[in-house]
């Protein structure tokens, strides 16, 4: 029955899905409502642990217009303008070109799956630590999805101090000031959203999304993404852009199939 509630919750977003996907999801929706006694068994079948035979992929392309706006890009630091470096600050909101939009898209965009069933399992933490670079007075990437328990490295690539910190309830930390080519790390042991800033350069910001399952992906420079080896089932796929969730949809993953799901905003 939990699956039904999940679908009810996100159902308004279904209207944005492509027509064939709508038809497919509508069929499941109707089935669950018309045959309520069948729902538990269907759900149970769908959340079986992933195996090579019972898993599928989701892939697609994300296109976000430059005019969609960037909250992080608008973060302006008047004090840095007055008392910072003499040269002009890098500001990606003021010099948007077609090429740079795609680059920023890969830096600021993530898709991930929401599912209580997926979250209840335990997943091995990746051995390679993901990086949140401080480079050119910006964080790269500006949105970083990680699996719960992951340790993130924060290397400083700039020839000046940065002071990375977060006051988020999920994981408050303050790494202090450290020079170029030095790094500090933080392990994220609670799921949730962690807003990351630099205490010296107020315009710098990033978001770490601490997820309970490993089914997430960031698009490449062309906006193409793929989430692979997902257990067969029906999930909510979330599109995160810049500072917030911008879209949720329901997607059904079928064994041995790759479902195409494109996002355009």
């Amino acid at each position, binding site marked *: 029955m939990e699956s039904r509630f999940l679908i009810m919750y996100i159902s308004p977003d279904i209207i944005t899905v492509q027509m064939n996907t709508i038809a497919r999801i509508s069929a499941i929706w109707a089935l669950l409502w018309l045959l309520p006694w069948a729902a538990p068994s269907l759900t149970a079948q769908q959340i079986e642990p992933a195996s090579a035979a019972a898993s599928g992929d989701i892939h697609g392309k994300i296109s976000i217009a430059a005019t969609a706006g960037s909250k992080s890009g*608008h973060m*302006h630091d*008047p*004090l*840095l*303008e*007055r*008392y910072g*470096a*003499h*040269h*002009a600050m890098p*500001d990606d*909101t*003021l*010099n948007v070109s077609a090429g740079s939009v795609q680059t920023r898209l890969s830096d600021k965009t993530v898709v991930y799956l929401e599912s209580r069933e997926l979250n209840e399992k335990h997943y091995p933490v990746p051995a390679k630590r993901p990086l949140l670079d401080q480079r050119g007075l910006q964080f790269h990437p500006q949105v970083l999805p990680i699996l719960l328990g992951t340790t993130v490295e924060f290397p400083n690539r700039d*020839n*000046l*101090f940065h002071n990375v*910190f*977060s*006051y988020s309830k999920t994981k*408050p*930390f*303050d790494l*202090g*000031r*450290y*020079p*170029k080519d030095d790094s500090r790390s933080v392990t994220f042991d609670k799921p949730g959203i962690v*807003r990351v*800033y630099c205490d010296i350069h107020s315009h710098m910001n990033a978001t770490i999304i601490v997820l309970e399952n490993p089914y997430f992906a960031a698009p490449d420079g062309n906006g193409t993404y793929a989430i692979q080896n997902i257990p067969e089932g029906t999930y909510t796929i979330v599109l995160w852009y810049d500072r917030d969730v911008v879209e949720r949809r329901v997607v059904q993953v079928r064994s041995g199939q790759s479902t195409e799901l494109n996002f355009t905003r």
Partner: protein
Amino acid sequence: MTLNRSLLVCLLCSVPLRGAAQVTLGGQVSADFLKSAPTQSQRVFNAGRPTFGWEAELFADGRITDNVAFLGTVRITDDEYVHIDYLAVRIADLTPLGLTIQAGEFDLPFGNLGERRYPRRNPFFHLPLIHEYRTALSDYLPGEPYLAGSKGRGNGMHLLDEGMYDVGAMVSGSYGILDYAFALSIGTVSATGYGAQNINSDLGKVFRLAVTPMTGLTLGAAYAWGAYLYEQSQPTPRNVDVNSYQQQAAEIDIEFSRGHFVMNGQAVYNTWPVPLADRDVNLSVFGYYLEGRYTLFPGFYLALRSSGLRFADALLQGVNQPWDYNVTEWEGAAGYFLDRDVLLKLVRTETRIWGGTTPKDNLTALQLVVAF
């Protein structure tokens, strides 16, 4: 507001209307509760009665092209005065030397106070003592009896005029690890033209050089000079031109940071030549402050600042003595960021004035700052 300031405001405000400038707005608002000792010194608020206060800074910045921008800061205080602290056009990275030119109203490049002018970045409640304490010397050509009788009254000039906001033009730039700046303004570092027109025929000059030998350490030095007396004070006792009485100030400053520790300090030596009825006298003062801030855990810091003013001896009314009372001040602060842009701080200030009737003062301030 005087005519030239009105024109400046109109000129700068018209910039975004004519072009494609992108204007960004921001600001800081602070509300505070103050309780000082019930004494009579200039460091006392409201005769020691508990008092609430507030202050707001509003920023309006715009970029006209990649290299041309305008910057504006308006400060409103609880006395309901509107101060224009910053209103300047900046042309950055001029080729081939990479110079930046700024014209309008800005703060003079004397020292490294920088963004600590603003409550969100100031770990304490006050600016350093050398920016706020008023000496016995007025820029209205004080007579010898007045000067000798003004010790500790706080009727005169600051050593450094609060935020040192002044109207003028500045050229600045960098060369490797060196930063340099040269500014011309209508006032001097202790008698700025802030909120007024030029008071004499001279311009204030400030030259600053800073070096950053390693990340986290910046050493700076500056020299400033210029006439500081009002021309309305003419004629001087011996008919000497007031513009020949040139204030001279030299300073060194340091900023060091590493890990969770940040330290700033400044030492200033200043001298004002003063025309008296029968002779000139040089009034000199040495001022300093050293402050440190340490972040104990995310969002919580402790800070300590030591400041002082040491007045040199001068022969006044037949007695060779310090021309004002020396001052020593200690400030301790604890601050906690309730949110990234919300700071609550508790500050205690202890002031010792080495002379007069109120040798000890103190102030306790609880301040809430919100940046947006």
